[in-house]
């Protein structure tokens, strides 16, 4: 084999397979080998090489029969938050260790129906709660990236979709699913030099995804480039009657309509995202991104999103409140862990099971959520936060009267070291400052790699679009991708 198949993008695998340049089995074997050799990254909770091979054999047979599907021959990673029939689904928790779903999530089923194969279930922050992948019951995911300071510090791959980001950056899979509640696709993508898009809330069915905060949770793809994100997303999105918040809209052919010509488009630069004391590398990257979009023909306008500073505190009321309600289902009765102390009654069993099955961050959020929803505090916290959320959403609506997309950094820093932020939960929360507002407003937003900082670590630019305008987001992302020329990758040490 002349080329290393694991260096190919989703589009290249799809097209090369279609053209007969290689077989799908060769592709699956190459990625299976990379997965098996990368235990040091701890990106996978379960590896499923046989499923990847099975789908590949089917893809090769389909090619011979002339019945190729959109993702035939493409093996992918599946975040372990999606229920997969017959394959353990844990949400990286002890609570769901050993849980083997008897059904398939809508999004994963769509991907299999499109011909994709599964390389395995990817590690994540426990119940998707975290920004560094340090809350997983199955251990930290280690980023393939290292600082260029000669040190050997293990870095966070971002979170919660940290297994997805690490696996793609390390060429263990060409693409993966992620979910984004308050930045969980975009921040890990930025930390590892890959792309990822959270579509408009409701584009992808939540059915069969382990719930965290239902009004915010949204699935989306992560991949090496913008085109691959478009290909993946159009095979994940679509109306699903089993999700009451699913959007009943046709799924556009986002890939076919990709265009980096931004003539006539206006790009908004939110002045509230210029944080005092922020790493100068972040601002420099942002300025470079502005120049790139101008070069692509766009007009740049300053905008104001006045309630930006309140987005994060509102999020840390709303998301825990919904989590405390969603996670009430883990009671040791119907599925998952049961801890029944000697002679205990039902109530003691609930309390013991939940003490044993949830990690510290999950407990913290359930506790906050329980408190802000409790009698006497509901209006002061929860109702107030939902009103602020309305104001944040209005900020975006007003801004989109003068611009088509918004450009901002994805995160306020590059990847930090494992353990650097775990002592202070609040400092960890603050890393999602630029990602959370779009989540609260349900808007499509993506991160594309834009630069390396002075430590040699990737930084991402974020594009936020109008509701339903994934195309505008992808196109602006493509314009940056073409101009940033980001080709850096982590040197292999694992």
């Amino acid at each position, binding site marked *: 084999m002349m080329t290393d198949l694991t260096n190919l993008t989703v589009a290249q695998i799809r097209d090369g397979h279609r053209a007969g340049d290689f077989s799908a089995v060769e592709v699956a074997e190459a990625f299976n080998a990379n997965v098996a050799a990368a235990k040091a990254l701890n990106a996978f909770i379960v590896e499923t090489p046989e499923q990847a091979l099975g789908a590949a054999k089917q893809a090769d047979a389909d090619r011979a029969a002339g019945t190729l599907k959109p993702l035939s021959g493409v093996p992918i990673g599946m975040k372990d938050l999606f229920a997969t029939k017959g394959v353990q689904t844990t949400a990286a928790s002890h609570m769901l260790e050993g849980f083997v779903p008897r059904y398939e999530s809508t999004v994963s089923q769509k991907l299999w129906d499109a011909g994709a194969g599964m390389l395995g279930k990817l590690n994540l922050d426990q119940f998707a709660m975290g920004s560094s992948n340090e809350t997983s019951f199955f251990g930290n995911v280690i980023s393939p990236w290292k600082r260029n300071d000669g040190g050997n510090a293990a870095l966070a791959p971002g979170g919660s979709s940290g297994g997805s980001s690490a696996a793609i950056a390390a060429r263990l899979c060409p693409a993966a699913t992620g979910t984004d509640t308050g930045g969980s696709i975009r921040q890990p993508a930025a930390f590892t030099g890959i792309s990822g898009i959270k579509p408009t809330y409701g584009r992808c069915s939540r059915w069969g995804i382990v719930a965290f905060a239902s009004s915010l949770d949204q699935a989306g793809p992560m991949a090496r480039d913008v085109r691959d994100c478009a290909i993946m997303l159009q095979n994940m999105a679509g109306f699903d009657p089993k999700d009451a918040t699913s959007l009943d809209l046709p799924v556009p052919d986002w890939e076919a309509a990709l265009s980096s010509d931004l003539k006539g488009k206006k790009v908004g630069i939110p002045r509230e995202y210029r944080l005092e004391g922020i790493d100068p590398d972040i601002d420099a990257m942002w300025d470079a991104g502005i120049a790139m979009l101008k070069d692509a023909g766009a007009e740049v306008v300053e905008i104001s999103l006045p309630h930006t500073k309140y987005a994060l505190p509102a999020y840390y009321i709303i998301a825990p409140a919904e989590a405390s309600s969603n996670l009430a289902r883990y009671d040791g009765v119907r599925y998952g*862990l049961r801890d029944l102390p000697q002679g205990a009654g039902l109530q003691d069993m609930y309390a013991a099971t939940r003490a044993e099955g949830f990690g510290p961050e999950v407990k913290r959020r359930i506790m906050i959520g329980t408190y802000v929803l409790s009698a006497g505090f509901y209006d002061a916290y929860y109702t107030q936060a939902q009103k602020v959320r309305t104001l944040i959403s209005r900020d975006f609506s007003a801004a989109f009267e003068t611009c088509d997309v918004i450009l901002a950094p994805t995160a306020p820093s590059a990847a930090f070291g494992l353990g650097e932020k775990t002592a202070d939960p609040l400092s960890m929360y603050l890393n999602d400052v630029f990602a959370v507002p779009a989540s609260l407003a349900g808007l499509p937003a993506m991160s594309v790699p834009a630069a390396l900082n002075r430590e040699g670590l990737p930084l991402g630019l974020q594009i936020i679009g109008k509701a339903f305008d994934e195309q505008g987001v992808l196109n602006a992302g493509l314009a940056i991708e073409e101009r940033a020329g980001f080709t850096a990758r982590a040197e292999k040490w694992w």
Partner: protein
Amino acid sequence: MAIDQATVKKIASLARIAISDAEAAAMEGELNNILGWVEQLGEVDVSGVEPMTAVIPNTLRLRDDIVDADPLTGGNRRDDVLANAPEPQHGFFGVPKVIE
């Protein structure tokens, strides 16, 4: 409004999470930090603002009134439903005795 250890234990009890004194002490500081930080929402003028109920306008659909309309979520799936139960008994979920 700062919370004390007794409140932490009350919240844990409401959330059905067993918690030791040491854990409650540690959590008291953490929760106060977080709650102190979210207090800043109180300074936002929200007069006349409705709380958000649906982030993307959507209408609630009703499915057709047909038994087992969806084969995945319809009835007659007892064995699937019980497959991951920690203590299935005679086709039911087993729990510790709740009535003396």
